[in-house]
């Protein structure tokens, strides 16, 4: 736990950070070697596949962990927020009349920017509305009540999309051209590069926001001790609403990415994505944003490694076995609940 005397904004520069960085690089190298040994010459492509799917899981997992960090609620509706986000971007792109790749780079950039800002904004607001009406009235209720409510919200979102939008799979325009870029020895398709870069940028921005801004400090102090934060003049309701806005916005971004990458969406999408992202958050240490990102990538790698070695049918078993093992030996997750850093 962070010593109470440490200035909250400077926690990030502790030695623990370097251990995490070194450990991450070592794990990436190890993962690459494991994948390459089984991939029969396609190691690099598989590594990129793992990073891409891991990035999507990480973006969703951040919302779980932020909400847990601040109000200790496992927000089971979060996977469905992601699903609704994918429908929002589907709606936007089809309404704007796109049905395939946009080759003009300027137009593509504008459409992507509009798409992400719009979907993240809409989902952020949806997240705030959910918090306001489903969770805030239950904030002082026993822990089980908001949990059940969260499951209820999950069903409401699913059924709203099922009845109101589409009860079957919709195809999202894949506006990023399917081209392969060659950067030195690396061959990567544009969409994969875009997703990985986007996820890293969003996560870095989130870390900066939480670590370096006033509102971020308010979030961290609320996470540590809500009552004390309130006494120090932090507006608890605004801070929690902000946390939901950011977490749901990131899920909205993941929803857009889902549409761009896979080209489809369906109202049941949120269940499995949410389950894996939740697992990622727990694996990394729920309440810890760095841990959630790490957990997301770990799950991406586990799934790809399972597929590479021909045990794809066991991938869910492997993921959840890893979760059980981590929880047995490190109940607080890989990075633990670093209270000072959780948001």
């Amino acid at each position, binding site marked *: 736990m962070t010593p109470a005397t440490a200035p909250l904004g400077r926690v990030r520069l502790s030695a623990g950070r370097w251990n995490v960085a070194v450990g991450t690089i070592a794990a990436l190298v190890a993962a690459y070697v494991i994948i390459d040994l089984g991939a029969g010459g396609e190691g690099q492509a598989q590594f990129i596949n793992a990073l891409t799917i891991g990035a999507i899981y990480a973006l969703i997992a951040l919302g779980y962990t932020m909400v847990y960090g601040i109000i200790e609620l496992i927000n089971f509706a979060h996977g469905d927020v992601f699903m609704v986000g994918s429908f929002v971007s589907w709606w936007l792109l089809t309404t704007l009349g796109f049905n395939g790749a946009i080759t003009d780079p300027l137009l593509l950039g504008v459409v992507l920017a509009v798409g992400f800002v719009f979907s993240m904004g809409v989902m952020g607001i949806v997240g705030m509305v959910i918090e306001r009406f489903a969770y805030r009235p239950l904030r002082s209720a026993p822990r089980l009540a908001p949990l059940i409510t969260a499951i209820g919200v999950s069903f409401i979102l699913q059924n709203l999309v099922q009845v109101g939008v589409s009860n079957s799979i919709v195809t999202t325009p894949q506006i990023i051209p399917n081209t392969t870029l060659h950067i030195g020895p690396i061959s990567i398709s544009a969409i994969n590069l875009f997703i990985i870069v986007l996820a890293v940028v969003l996560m870095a921005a989130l870390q900066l926001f939480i670590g370096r801004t006033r509102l971020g400090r308010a979030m961290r102090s609320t996470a540590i001790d809500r009552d004390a934060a309130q006494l120090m003049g932090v507006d608890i309701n605004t801070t929690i609403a902000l946390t939901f806005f950011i977490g749901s916005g990131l899920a909205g971004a993941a929803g857009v990415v889902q549409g761009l990458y*896979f*080209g*489809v969406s*369906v109202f049941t*999408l949120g269940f499995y994505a949410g389950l894996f992202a939740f697992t990622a958050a727990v694996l990394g240490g729920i309440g810890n944003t760095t841990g959630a990102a790490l957990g997301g990538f770990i799950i991406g790698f586990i799934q790809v490694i399972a597929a590479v070695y021909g045990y794809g049918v066991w*991938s*869910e078993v492997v993921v959840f076995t890893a979760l059980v093992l981590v929880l047995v030996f490190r109940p607080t997750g890989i990075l633990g609940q670093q209270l000072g850093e959780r948001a």
Partner: protein
Amino acid sequence: MKYARVGASLAVIAVVASACSGSTASPAASAAASGAAGGAAINVKVGIELPMSGGEAPNGVPTANGVALAIDQVKVPGFNVTISQQDDAVNGVHNPQQGAKNMQTLANDPTVLFVVGPFNSNVGQAEIPVGNAAGLMQCSPANTYPGLTKEWGGVSPTTLRPTHPDKIAYVRVATTDDLQGAAGADIAFNIAKAKTAYVADDTQTYGKGLADVFATDFAKLGGTVAKRDSIPGSTTDFTSYVTALKSFNPDYVYYGGVTTSGIGLFRKQMAQQGLQTIPFGGGDGISDGSAATKSSFLQIAGPAGDQNTYSTVAATHDIPNPGALQAAYKAKFGTDPGAYSAAGYACTQVFLQALQAVAASAGSDLATLREAVRAYVADPSHSYDTVLGKFSFDANGDTTQHIISYYGYDATTQDWKFLQQRDFTAKPLF
């Protein structure tokens, strides 16, 4: 006030609904008592147990339409036949538990004498014990998993009939996956001229069974199975499987399963990685309509992925009089029939012909009628003249028509195009 108005409109709806049903079904008991010979017709029902919603609608709806069309066109004197419609799709995906529940609902309704359905083999697995216990005959237009009727993989089908092991209450007009898998291998080896294949399945009863037969028969024909994979149906990210596939360098990819398991996505992700030139085949689980059909395999795979794809249907394509069915179907429903519309029609004809045959001897008691229909259809000596042609059911309940239709993607119509059909009785693969 507001509530009062809602209540009033509900009451109006209720009156209209009861008026509608009254014209068809309400005097069931009295009509049953008066008998077929008396003036009033006996009200009986055919249950339709198919996946009707969500991603499965392209399978269930055209098949159910086939049943409705047959009921419209074929009349049995002395009987007034209506439909009891059930849907086994939960959240848009076929669900065995829901199927068994629906089957129980149908069995509990004494006026239901026969059931058409289900569409999916794992749903069939769950329903057969229920129908067997109730003595309610069902005819599946589309189930193809061999183990539903005959010994398969060392398991006897009597395990599905715990109540009355010797009384069959399940027949099907679709032939089985041992032939459909053989047909898939025939396409891969003889039409696509492939020598090595990557074979995957969606881990479900139907998909795994189909892929297993394909792998065996493809090897028997002289091909090599480079890799045999199983991918859970909940998967959306197939990229790592597709990337792995490259290293096996196959001439053909065969995927056993249904579209809702993500097979269209698999093909789409193949195309994204530039592998659309590798031919891709599947069974009737992906033969679910054109690229314009919502949630169909061809729509999800996209224009690039649709290239070089093949599918099979476990039913005859060259039915004796296709024009008449096509025209009548189009007139009633405004679209062309689906892959199993004729099969749904044929199942209904089996029932109507059985009903006509037993009507005189079974009298008007509904329970006696239900058992009489079951016993008539279960008797292998009877044959039926249907839209699919003339056939009978063997002692297991399998159709004697062993025909598989082959389809390939056609870019101009953006739909499946009939290639040929093969009668495996007249022309076995080996």
